[in-house]
């Protein structure tokens, strides 16, 4: 492999992490800006149903960032950009934050108001939805899987768990990504294209790992 240029080395060491942070924060900042415009009665990009727009936006963002986090390994293994690994945890954590905001928005902007401004009413509504509505069951399951991954995303937790256990635990990302895509698929009406696109991207990312696993197995046998 050719030597990394001085610029690339410096970029990866100094700029990569902060740049990733701000890029990942950008959708959230943009949404806050849109809400600021909306609440000051200024034209905004959220259309005539801003609450619905907010749910879709946060959900899409969480899911897509999750898919990006799963793309880190193939990018590292198939391209010369090895330093991408440095921002994997940051990407995964961003998916968690957007998923959390997605749930908080649903609780606060919908259930809280539908329950007549009652917090317990909103939480009861959420539980009712989890029990009754398959797409919310799937989405909540995905989020529950995300929680241990987010909690163990700090260096100290990695050390405490040991690298092997940490890696094993974080394999949870595969089933939870499937749950998240299904959540989207079951949420939309009719047979829509977008969940298939998300599903296709996920299938490719999981397929890559499966192929690797099978190859390794064959090598061991030989």
């Amino acid at each position, binding site marked *: 492999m050719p030597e990394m240029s001085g610029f690339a080395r410096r970029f990866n060491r100094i700029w990569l992490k902060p740049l990733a942070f701000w890029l990942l924060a950008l959708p959230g900042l943009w949404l806050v800006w849109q809400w600021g415009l909306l609440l000051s009665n200024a034209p905004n990009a959220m259309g005539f149903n801003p609450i619905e727009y907010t749910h879709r936006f946060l959900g899409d963002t969480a899911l897509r960032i999750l898919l990006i986090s799963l793309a880190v390994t193939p990018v590292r293994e198939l391209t010369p950009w090895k330093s991408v690994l440095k921002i994997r945890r940051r990407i995964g954590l961003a998916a968690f934050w957007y998923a959390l905001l997605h749930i908080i928005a649903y609780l606060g902007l919908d259930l809280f108001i*539908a329950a007549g401004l009652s917090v317990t009413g909103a939480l009861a509504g959420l539980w009712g939805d989890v029990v009754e509505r398959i797409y919310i069951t799937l989405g909540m399951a995905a989020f529950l899987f995300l929680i241990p991954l987010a909690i163990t995303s700090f260096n100290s937790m990695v050390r405490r768990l040991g690298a092997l256990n940490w890696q094993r635990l974080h394999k949870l990302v595969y089933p939870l990504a499937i749950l998240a895509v299904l959540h989207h698929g079951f949420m939309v009406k*009719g*047979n*829509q294209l977008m969940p298939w696109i998300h599903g296709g991207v996920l299938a490719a990312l999981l397929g890559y790992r499966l192929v690797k696993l099978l190859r390794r197995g064959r090598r061991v046998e030989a």
Partner: protein
Amino acid sequence: MIRRPYEPWQSESDSVTPKSLYLNRRRIIAAGGALALAGLTGCGREGAAQTGANTLSFRQTDYAVNDTPTPYDAVTGYNNFYEFGVSKEEPARYASAMTTSPWSIDVEGLAERTGSFGLEDLVNFGALEERIYRMRCVEAWSMVIPWIGVPLGPVLQSLQPSPNARYVQFETYYNRDEMRGTRFRVLDWPYVEGLRIDEAMNELAFLAVGLYGEVLPNQNGAPIRLVVPWKYGYKSIKSIRKIRFVEGQPETSWNQSAPNEYGFYSNVNPNRSHPRWSQRSERVIGAGVFARRDTEMFNGYEAQVASLYEGMDLLVNH
């Protein structure tokens, strides 16, 4: 059911905006558009927008809900018309590709008068009336829309359905070149809907050719659409190209797509929780970010339609 008092952000207005007022507002908006256009082309004529070719003459009726009509921009900018895309904004963006003139409606099946009819053959444009109905979407939002059109019943009667025509099916225009959303099979195109014949003859069932005093914009189902205000919005089929009188319960698109979710009747019913949405309350589009209201049985039209379903279990026949 205990009714929750109106929240401070909810409209308590008991009066519909007087038409002179909202028409005036429309004119101001239209004039603004004309001015902008004049600015662009440099050849605008003052007042031209006030007598647009799209204006319809009609009489007012007592069919009017006691709530402020949803702003015109929301009614025409937030639409479900999956033939043009699954987002709410795509229909307004892409429906202009649909050819609405000339237009014909094929009448088929169990009726004396069948064949191809022009729009004017079925709708008497000299007898248009306005009805301000609430439209309740299954996605738990609602609008209040001043429709212009004619009652459905007399139109169907004029086609002389035979006594064994117990149902009527409607079919939406379908043209892959003009309707970009149909390139993906979201539903089994063309879109079809249906009513029991006594439902179709109910005084509330309406054929709309306009809204807010003007010809229907394409995204709202031009040139002619159904409006059945006591049922979820998807029953109010758009851009009708075929009317079919049949004996057995006809297929309907959403019912075909997910039978456990969307029944043939699809009456608005806050007591039946839909697998996706609790139907207890609804978001009021265009009335403020947090505006919600409790959903009413038959969307508030119980007095006019409840007798159609006497003795039926509406949770089973949803």
